[in-house]
């Protein structure tokens, strides 16, 4: 019985994570509670006083899935930049991996798979905290966890494929500031995209984060439209597939040429 190569790559990441998890307790459990408390409850009170509800939801219910998926995206984006370049260039441990029977494409696949699992662990904690704060009205909310993980993979896939082609990290802060941050702020996370200027509104469909947030929001609120859910899943899966198409090639080119 052989273990699939992807799983063997994941084992390495899981072992590093297992050693660090105590240090991650703050970011895993406390951080969601702080964000939900400040945005959902603190700011939410102001929203209630003025607008009553947002798209038929309390602001806490509206913002919780947004924050959930946005934090999965941020984790995926930063984990797919510096650690990937480090593995190829600074610490070079990726070169050690491809000297074994593991192929570069399998290393890539295992890396994306792990990032999704990592995001899933964080999202599970987030959903738990959110549920305790009353921000998950529907039992379907459990499905927000895989939704966030899928969104993480949709970001990790293409970004990791890009990062491995780089010789320095100068482009990474740019991606964070001009890519990840605007997505975080304008993808229906803090306010509905219907409030965007009409010219910009159609652009939201190009944001994988928007699809992820909508998917998670459908789960946590229990209000969903099957066609929309299928579309969101399809878009995110397409991002993962596009990432994989590029990533297998860029990893192979960088690590065995």
């Amino acid at each position: 019985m052989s273990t699939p190569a992807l799983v063997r790559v994941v084992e390495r990441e899981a072992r590093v994570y297992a050693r660090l998890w105590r240090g991650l307790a703050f970011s895993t459990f406390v951080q969601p509670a702080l964000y939900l408390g400040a945005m959902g409850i603190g700011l939410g009170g102001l929203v209630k006083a003025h607008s009553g509800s947002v798209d038929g939801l309390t602001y806490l219910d509206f913002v919780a899935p947004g924050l959930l998926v946005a934090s999965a995206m941020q984790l995926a984006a930063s984990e797919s930049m510096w650690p990937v370049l480090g593995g190829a260039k600074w610490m070079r441990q990726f070169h050690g991996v491809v000297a074994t029977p593991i192929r570069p494409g399998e290393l890539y696949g295992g890396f994306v798979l792990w990032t999704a699992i990592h995001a899933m662990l964080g999202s599970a904690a987030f959903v738990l905290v959110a549920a305790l704060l009353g921000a998950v009205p529907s039992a379907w909310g459990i499905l927000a966890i895989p939704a966030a993980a899928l969104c993480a993979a949709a970001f990790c896939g293409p970004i990791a494929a890009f990062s491995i082609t780089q010789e320095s990290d100068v482009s990474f802060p740019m991606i964070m500031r001009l890519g990840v941050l605007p997505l975080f702020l304008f993808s229906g996370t803090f306010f509905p995209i219907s409030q965007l200027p009409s010219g910009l509104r159609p652009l939201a469909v190009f944001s994988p984060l928007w699809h992820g947030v909508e998917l998670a929001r459908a789960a946590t609120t229990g209000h969903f439209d099957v066609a929309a859910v299928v579309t969101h899943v399809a878009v995110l899966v397409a991002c993962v597939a596009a990432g994989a198409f590029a990533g297998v090639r860029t990893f192979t080119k960088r690590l065995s040429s």
Partner: protein
Amino acid sequence: MTATLRILPFLRWGHRPWRLVERNVLAYRRVWYIFLSGFAEPLFFLLSIGIGVGKLVGDLDVGGHLVPYRTFVAPGLLAIAAMNGSLLDTTFNFFFKMKYTHTYDGVLAAPLTPRDVATGEITWALLRGTIYSAAFLVTMLLFGDLRSWWSVLALPGAVLIGYGFAGVGLAATTYMRSFVDFDYVNMAMIPLFLFSATFFPLARYDAGLQTVIRLTPLYQGVVLERSLVIGDLNWTLLLHAAYLLAMGLIGLRVASRRIGLLLQP
């Protein structure tokens, strides 16, 4: 005058620490676009939280003035940006240069002292922060969020916030052993970022929490900036300013004592 210069040594133009500022300017010249992208960050926040969320929140009463949420949150974002920029430079970037790229080993082989290094890095962080803050204030002006002539003091106010956090950040970094310790920086920054009356007024908390928040550092900066741009002046603002100044002074004092041990063990 001399006393002031001892307190704010970085103001002495052309003095040794400026060599380090020059070095950083040169290093950044090759990646000018990273410098430029720094302008975008607070602007994105203003558009999203100020305008997007603002539409959901409506108008707020600040010291008797009814203002749009955007006008309420913008000075908070200004204070946050000043804190973030300053802490990033004096904690993460400083540690990285010290431990990994060994930038200072060469600097200290030249006739610069560890204290010059600390002062130079803070000067650089504040210079950069001043440029970003000025740009953000211009944006606020265009949006009509500067309601008072006292706003001209908002820029020095932002520098003061930067100074306060730079001192504390640098002092804290001298106690860090590895990057894992930077989780503590996050642990401190995130609650400050979220709960310093930045996104919603202090009145939203119960009385006990209000007292706690009143004692936290970023709150001082947020109140200072908000009062200045809205024109809600009173003498207690001097207390907030004094708090930030003290943070910077004590932080720098601790930092320069320890930084010698660290860089020239």
